[in-house]
């Protein structure tokens, strides 16, 4: 197997949580929702908590 093919296999057949989340639309949504609301929380804590 060539080096390029090694790389291809490594990027398509993983079974990690990240790959599971990416391979399903629902999983991808959940991942993005978690990142988005996490970032929103950070923004709230840093800039808005005292203002509201």
């Amino acid at each position, binding site marked *: 197997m060539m080096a390029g093919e090694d790389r*291809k296999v490594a*990027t398509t057949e993983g079974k990690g949580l990240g790959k599971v989340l*990416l*391979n399903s639309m629902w999983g*991808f949504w959940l991942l993005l929702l978690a990142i*988005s609301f996490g*970032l929103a929380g950070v923004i*709230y804590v840093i*800039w808005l908590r005292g*203002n509201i």
Partner: protein
Amino acid sequence: MFDFIIAGVQAPVFLLVFVGFTVGIVGGFIGVGGGYMVTPALIVFGFPGYMASGIDMTHIAGKGLVSTLRHRQLGNIDWTLAMSMVAGTMLGVELGVRVLVYFKKLGVAGVVLLVTSVVVMFSLFLYTQIETRRAHRQMRELVPDGKGVGREFQTSSLPKFFQSIPLSPIVRCRTARVVVSMWVIVLVGVVTGFLAGFLGVGGGFIRVPALVYLVGASTHIAVGTDLVEIVFSGGYGALRHSIEGHVDMMAVVFMISGALFGAQLGSIATAYVRGPAIRYVLSYSLILATLGSVMRLIYVATGQTVEWLSFAAVILTLGEMIFLCLFILSLLWFARQHRRGLWVPDWVKPLVIS
């Protein structure tokens, strides 16, 4: 923190630029002004409600113009459709405002507004989501690799019904490749304008699905054509708010500086995706906005005493913008990966243009 003298508040400049940028991407991609996201965000930042509305409308006018120019370059605007809708939209907005004034006199405007917005947005979400998922599933079965399909694919039978109404004059919309009675276009303009006027929003999130599912335009054309309407309505709204003194130009400048880049990026991103991808993002924005309205409704119904609802609404408002923005940027990145022949998830292939 920047001291906005006209609005009389201090707000972080970074957040204004950030909101302008994120909503710019979303607006350029799904063809909405984004008032239902920006106004609550500005209120969260400390701007008074009337000022938030004025700043939002003025920034929408500028951003809408940039998006429209970019969509014009991409060939996404049907001018016949846009101009045919304008008169109906104006009439509808006037009717909507009059009905709103009637409910204000009865003293129930706030609750009626929130309930109507929840019902309208949730219904649109449900129909768009069900239809888009069906289209997505069929595309995955027909073309698993995502190649050999045009940029539009939709499964609704409503356009056929509306296009078969034989009322003269019949209009040929060349760019949209639609032949339909002028009265259908005017009626769509009146109904969407009525809802926009009644709910106090630009109405893009109502007009885009209406253009797709009732008139039969492709999603890309619906987005570009709707942005033309937004330039008109946003420009008029900006003028009215400016006359009333509801606009802090410094806040507008900061928001526009982010929105100019975002709107172009969002508009360009439409060239990389198929119609269902745009409709997915539209439906997500509708359900998240619905959740925001439900929270505000519960907050009002509980006498504004449940503090965590206020906090949740803030997180939802900001999280919604970031989520939609990230989803669009992800699709753009996946599309580029797919074009280079690199790995992308299977569910993405039918949604992006390779």
